[in-house]
């Protein structure tokens, strides 16, 4: 896996924390998830968040670990991979969630059913920081 600086690490974690608010401002996106209620683990590999999704909105995002908290699936990537994924035009191989898993920069685990039934939704939700991330790290 590629490595990232401590500053990038902090920027990625901060960007993740803002995803629920960004999603609330994207009605076309959360409407696509209107049938989705799910507990999942998303984020940087060593700093993932427990996400509670109800009717397509993230109603709770809490840093892991949380004692005995369950999740159905997890999608976690290296900090550097998230930073690349959120560039305005990501480099080849860093431009898609499954490109990241194929190259070993991300891991997808657990019961994949909610992830696969809402695959484009998750791709788009997890791309929400792209608009502002470059500014945040510069």
């Amino acid at each position, binding site marked *: 896996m590629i490595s990232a600086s401590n500053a990038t690490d902090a920027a990625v974690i901060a960007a993740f924390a803002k995803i629920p608010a960004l999603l609330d401002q994207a009605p076309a996106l959360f409407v696509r998830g209107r049938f989705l209620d799910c507990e999942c683990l998303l984020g940087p590999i060593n700093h993932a968040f427990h996400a509670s999704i109800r009717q397509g909105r993230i109603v709770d995002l809490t840093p892991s670990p949380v004692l005995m908290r369950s999740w159905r699936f997890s999608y976690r990537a290296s900090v550097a991979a998230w930073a690349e994924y959120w560039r305005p*035009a*990501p480099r*080849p*191989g860093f*431009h*898609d*969630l*499954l*490109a990241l*898993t*194929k*190259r070993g920069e991300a891991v997808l685990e657990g019961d*994949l*059913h909610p992830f*696969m*039934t809402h*695959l*484009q939704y998750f*791709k788009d939700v997890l791309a929400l920081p792209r608009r502002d991330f470059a500014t945040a790290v510069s």
Partner: protein
Amino acid sequence: MNGVIEPIIGRYVHVDIDGEMYRIYFEESGTGIPLVCLHTAGSDGRQWRHLLADEAFAKNFRIIAFDMPWHGKSNPPASWDGTEYQLTTVRYTQTIRAFCKALQLDRPVVMGCSIGGRIVLNLAIDHADEFRALIGLEGADFQAPWYDTSWLNRPDVHGGEVCAALVSGLMAPQSPATSRAETLWAYKQGGPGVFKGDLYFYRVDGDLRGRVEKIDTKVCPLFLLTGEYDFSCTPEDTRRTAAAIGGASVTIMEQLGHFPMSENPEQFRRYISPVLDKILAAEAERTGLR
């Protein structure tokens, strides 16, 4: 009449494939060297509409794109009883050759993308003398799987949505949003299990490793072009394949992914135009026009 009518004409041809009749839909435009275009797995010939509408190419090429059986406007055969569709190397090769024969095409150029890029390698291996040139887009002798195809056809997952969502990431981020959406629309419209059935050829039956060395590009020139953003058939997959073939031309296309002709037709044109020029020049030399 106020509407703009495109030069593309669509018709049906009845084709005998291994003893069974298939009603195949195809679109064409232009006159000259036959150029048969093969769509990607789970999609249809609409992917080629920009190439078909290209006036400059149509001056020298009879550009033809057909829908494979089970795809687009080419229905399954009348005898189909609902059993799982599975494309094989043999069946895919038979279909292309039968279609070309039915239209009485004289040594056509065949250009295929993805599974089409793979099958042109098989055409080059076994039937090179039937073709004027072969063009493989996003083609390689084999590529590593990156998802489990059983997700593509099961009653508790929307097939159209999951097929489109899986391939959405194969396009370049620079490709125009409208062209990306149009490319995905075909995936959302595919019949149940058809994309998965095509991938049987791609993943299981069509492994050409160890066979591409037999390709003789002196008999039939081979052009391989792969988009830098294609992580299914990566540029490395194509380069490795070409390295085993003497004389194959390789181009890595910038700011393009797995669907160059439909995700960004303008960008693709920059890469395919010189290839078609080379084929024209070779033809001119062959016929003594130079």
